[in-house]
């Protein structure tokens, strides 16, 4: 699609709105807590939408439709697992963490790790470094999604596209911290939800409705309309029952314990929000995800019938939804609206990730490990520098987009799952978990995810997602090392509400 006046005008307006929010938010920043957790002031809806948007990512419009296009109905489970990640994060991690932080004043989950495992340096340091590494991997996936969108929108070189997007996101994140990220996310989330509800049905109807689409899919491959693939017989048929099992754990637990998702619970104003936010986040995101997935099916059906041709690129399926909308509605105002929706989806996770990386370095590594005397101003400044650096580093990697965006993003989540899930779950729910056990679980999980990820990618295909193997290694490391080492003090275990319960017992 050629760049046109209306689309560019609408996008410029959108960018100006984001920058204005950043400028307004910057006036509210008085201390580190304002910058990192928005002064713990997020209301119910802004918190719920922030959780949805942090889980959502560039996958929602670009990757989900691409995955639907390539794999059909056996991949539909992703659309149930991912919305559940927001609910899982709130219920399993959020309720307890928020309650503990009322007395302890945690700003990051690394603060919790340091306290729970009585390890102000080692566990905090490893958790922060691992968090930065996995967030950067994930961030590369997000910038790749942004690049795909902008190339399609403006028909320009993807390097220029990336630079423009990164500049806008970086400016408002740097100046406004979590205030800016959460308010821009509210706007982006509402645009995304409303836009998908309006546009996806257009694509589905243009392709002849769901019944017709499914009939066409079944002619391409009868397994396209089955709930899973019986065996792996081609590049797209990897959603076998055993793979789906590992996929469920990967998406529900892995995304839930990702630093940029779980840190949000510390910014909620009141713990009573956690009563209905899990259900509301799940339902809202489920509807959006299913509609986008069905659009991917619709585009596959249109391509099969010769009505639509995708670009001849290696990652053609990632363009499915965009080409579908373009085909379904030639109205220039619809394109402009759609352009903003896609940008909103990919930007809403990118800003949160960049802020998380900045926070982990400035607060967890610099303030708590290197220079405890650092004041609020120095922490905020350093965090801002790290936000810019994280954008630069991930941009360099994103300049060569991978063949399928979904794989890169799943790899990032896989590393998060292997590294953080075990120390987090064991820390909250198992009183026998020790500092040495947590360190072993994180390091073994990180190393094993590298080994199994490499094996799957370059040596031979594993029957399940590589993260299930590395998660198992981390569980074994946690149990064995914890049982061999000295337990944490009862005082700390009580203060961190450690035990097999979610809410405080009477």
């Amino acid at each position, binding site marked *: 699609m050629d760049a046109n006046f209306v689309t560019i005008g609408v996008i410029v307006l959108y960018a100006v709105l984001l920058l204005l929010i950043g400028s307004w938010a910057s006036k509210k920043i008085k201390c580190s807590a304002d910058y990192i957790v928005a002064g713990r002031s997020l209301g119910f809806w802004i918190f719920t939408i922030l959780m949805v948007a942090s889980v959502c990512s560039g996958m929602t419009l670009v990757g989900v439709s691409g995955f639907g296009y390539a794999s059909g109905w056996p991949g539909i*489970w992703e659309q*149930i697992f991912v919305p559940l990640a927001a609910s899982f994060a709130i219920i399993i991690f959020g309720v307890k963490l928020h309650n503990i932080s009322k007395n302890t004043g945690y700003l990051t989950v690394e603060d919790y790790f340091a306290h729970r495992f009585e390890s102000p340096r080692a566990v905090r340091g490893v958790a922060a470094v691992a968090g930065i590494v996995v967030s950067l991997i994930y961030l590369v996936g997000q910038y790749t999604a942004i690049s795909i969108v902008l190339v399609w929108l403006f028909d320009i070189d993807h390097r220029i596209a990336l630079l423009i997007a990164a500049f806008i996101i970086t400016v408002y994140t740097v100046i406004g911290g979590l205030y800016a990220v959460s308010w821009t996310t509210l706007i982006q989330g509402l645009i995304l939800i409303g836009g998908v509800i309006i546009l996806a049905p257009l694509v589905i109807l243009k392709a002849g409705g769901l*019944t017709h*689409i499914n009939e066409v899919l079944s002619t391409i491959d009868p397994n396209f309309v089955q709930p899973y693939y019986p065996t792996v017989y081609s590049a797209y048929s990897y959603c076998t029952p055993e793979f789906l099992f590992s996929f469920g754990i990967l998406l529900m637990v892995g995304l839930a314990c990702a630093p940029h998702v779980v840190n949000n619970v510390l910014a909620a104003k009141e713990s009573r929000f956690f*009563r*209905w936010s899990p*259900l509301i986040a*799940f339902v809202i995101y489920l509807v959006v995800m299913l509609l986008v997935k069905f659009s991917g099916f619709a585009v596959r059906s249109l391509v099969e019938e010769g009505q639509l041709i995708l670009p001849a690129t290696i990652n053609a399926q990632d363009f499915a939804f965009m080409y579908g909308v373009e085909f379904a509605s030639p109205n220039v105002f619809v394109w402009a609206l759609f352009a903003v929706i896609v940008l909103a989806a990919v930007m809403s996770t990118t800003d949160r990730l960049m802020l998380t990386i900045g926070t982990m370095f400035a607060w967890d590594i610099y303030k708590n490990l290197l220079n405890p005397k650092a004041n609020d101003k120095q922490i905020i400044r350093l965090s801002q520098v790290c936000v810019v650096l994280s954008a630069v580093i991930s941009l360099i990697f994103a300049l060569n987009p991978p063949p399928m965006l979904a794989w890169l993003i799943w790899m990032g989540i896989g590393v998060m799952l292997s590294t953080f899930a075990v120390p987090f779950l064991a820390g909250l729910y198992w009183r026998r978990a020790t500092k040495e056990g947590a360190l072993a679980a994180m390091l073994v999980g990180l190393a094993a995810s590298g080994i199994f990820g490499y094996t799957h990618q370059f040596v031979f295909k594993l029957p399940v997602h590589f993260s299930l193997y590395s998660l198992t290694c981390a569980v074994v490391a946690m149990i064995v090392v914890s049982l061999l080492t000295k337990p944490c003090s009862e005082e700390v275990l009580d203060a961190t509400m450690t035990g097999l319960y979610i*809410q405080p017992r009477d």
Partner: protein
Amino acid sequence: MVFGLPLETFLAVGIGILIPTILLLLWGLRFKEVTD
């Protein structure tokens, strides 16, 4: 066939959506509200 889908696919996906929805509803109903 339902919406062009085999019945087992329709039922599997339907149940897959219904179970978490019911569980989350139960969570909300049983949530113990603690005043901050």
